[in-house]
């Protein structure tokens, strides 16, 4: 494979940080919301900042949902970040009535009132499964919603903020993180390096 990677433009987000992290891998990332680019890209990154309903409707408006879903089902190289992970699921408490892409089981629910929400900061990533690109460590999270249980057929890592939730899931060259690997320092860079190598 070459250094080709397409970052899906779903609206305003911390795209510069995602692009900088990919460039540190030696990649030449391109930003696009063009359906042909999404279908043809060697590797696809779905960043996620913003609201669930807003991001889902941006994907739908650009006509990307089907192309995106086809790639995920085919097992093509994918990195989904934060809201990007939740968009793979069936929905979220954040935007009741909005259907996610339904590519993995489950809905994102709000973090408990017993802790500070949004969760902003470094929290643990814990996995007992070393068959995937996932490893245990600390990562940077910025979320108010999360998935409670990992879908079947994926390796997973968990963390806790008030209650346990899914930190990341991985399957071959597909990685979806609730945390921000692009903001997780050397540990995040190492994770992205493993993902890149698995593609």
């Amino acid at each position: 494979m070459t250094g080709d990677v397409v970052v899906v433009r779903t609206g305003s987000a911390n795209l510069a940080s995602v692009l900088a992290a990919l460039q540190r891998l030696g990649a030449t990332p391109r930003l696009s919301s063009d359906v042909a680019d999404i279908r043809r890209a060697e590797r696809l990154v779905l960043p996620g900042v913003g609201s669930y309903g807003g991001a889902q409707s941006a994907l739908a408006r650009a006509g990307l949902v089907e192309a995106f879903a086809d790639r995920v089902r085919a097992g093509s190289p994918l990195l989904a970040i934060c809201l990007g992970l939740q968009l793979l699921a069936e929905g979220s408490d954040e935007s009741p009535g909005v259907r996610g892409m339904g590519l993995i089981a489950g809905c994102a629910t709000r973090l408990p009132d017993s802790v500070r929400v949004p969760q902003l900061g470094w929290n643990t990533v814990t996995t007992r499964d070393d068959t995937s690109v996932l490893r245990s460590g600390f990562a940077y999270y910025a979320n108010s919603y999360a998935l409670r249980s990992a879908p079947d057929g994926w390796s997973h890592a968990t963390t806790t903020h008030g209650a346990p939730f899914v930190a990341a899931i991985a399957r071959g060259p597909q990685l979806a993180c609730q945390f921000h690997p692009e903001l997780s320092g050397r540990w995040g860079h190492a994770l992205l390096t493993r993902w890149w190598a698995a593609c």
Partner: protein
Amino acid sequence: MLTRRIIPCLDTRDGRVVKGVRFQGLRDAGSPVELAARYEQEGADEIVILDVVATDRGRDHALDTVRAVREVLSIPLTVGGGVREVRDAERLLEAGADKIGVNSAATDDPALLERLAATFGVQCVVLAIDAAEAGDAWRVFKRSGSDATGRDAVAWAVEGTQRGAGEILLTSIDRDGTRSGYDLALLAAVSRAVSVPVIASGGARTVTDLIDAVRAGADAVLAASMFHDGDTTVGLVKQAMARQGLEIRQ
């Protein structure tokens, strides 16, 4: 378990890091790129850049600074200074910020917080509050502490989070740059009143000050002078806080 963050702050003007006392008498403290890279290397959990003078020319400098820092930085970057509209925030995010700090403009136009949250999400919106003690309460000031707003600091923090701020950056004007410790009473009052994370700012001198701030309710502690002047390092501070039993990313 979520860890407490140690956040070095770079006050910048025209592409250089500056530092004053109680927002006055600014002096040069180095290159933002070099300092940001060094702090990440030492274990900083996040970097905050506050651009002191947000004139048109200064704003271009600030964007250049953010771009240059982003290239070397792989931890979160919060940027504030001169954000008056959604477009200003968008420019900073495009340059490489992850979160946007908003201060004076929100006191003039509180609905700005709603517009920012609707566009970028609450996790992207940091309400910076500059507060000074006034009798048995704290009042909010704007424009680098020069103008009174008439707002009560605790009430403003609550209103700000209801409107869309996902985090409060709480600076004591009385303590800023004085190295006399954070205003713990202010911190405790705001921290109790809101459910979003609170960053303590203004007055840190020693590790004990940082530990006291966390015990008073701070989710993160911000400091500038104590790191710029080489009194200590982020790494030493984190070791000391961990020895006191605080949850710290080592």
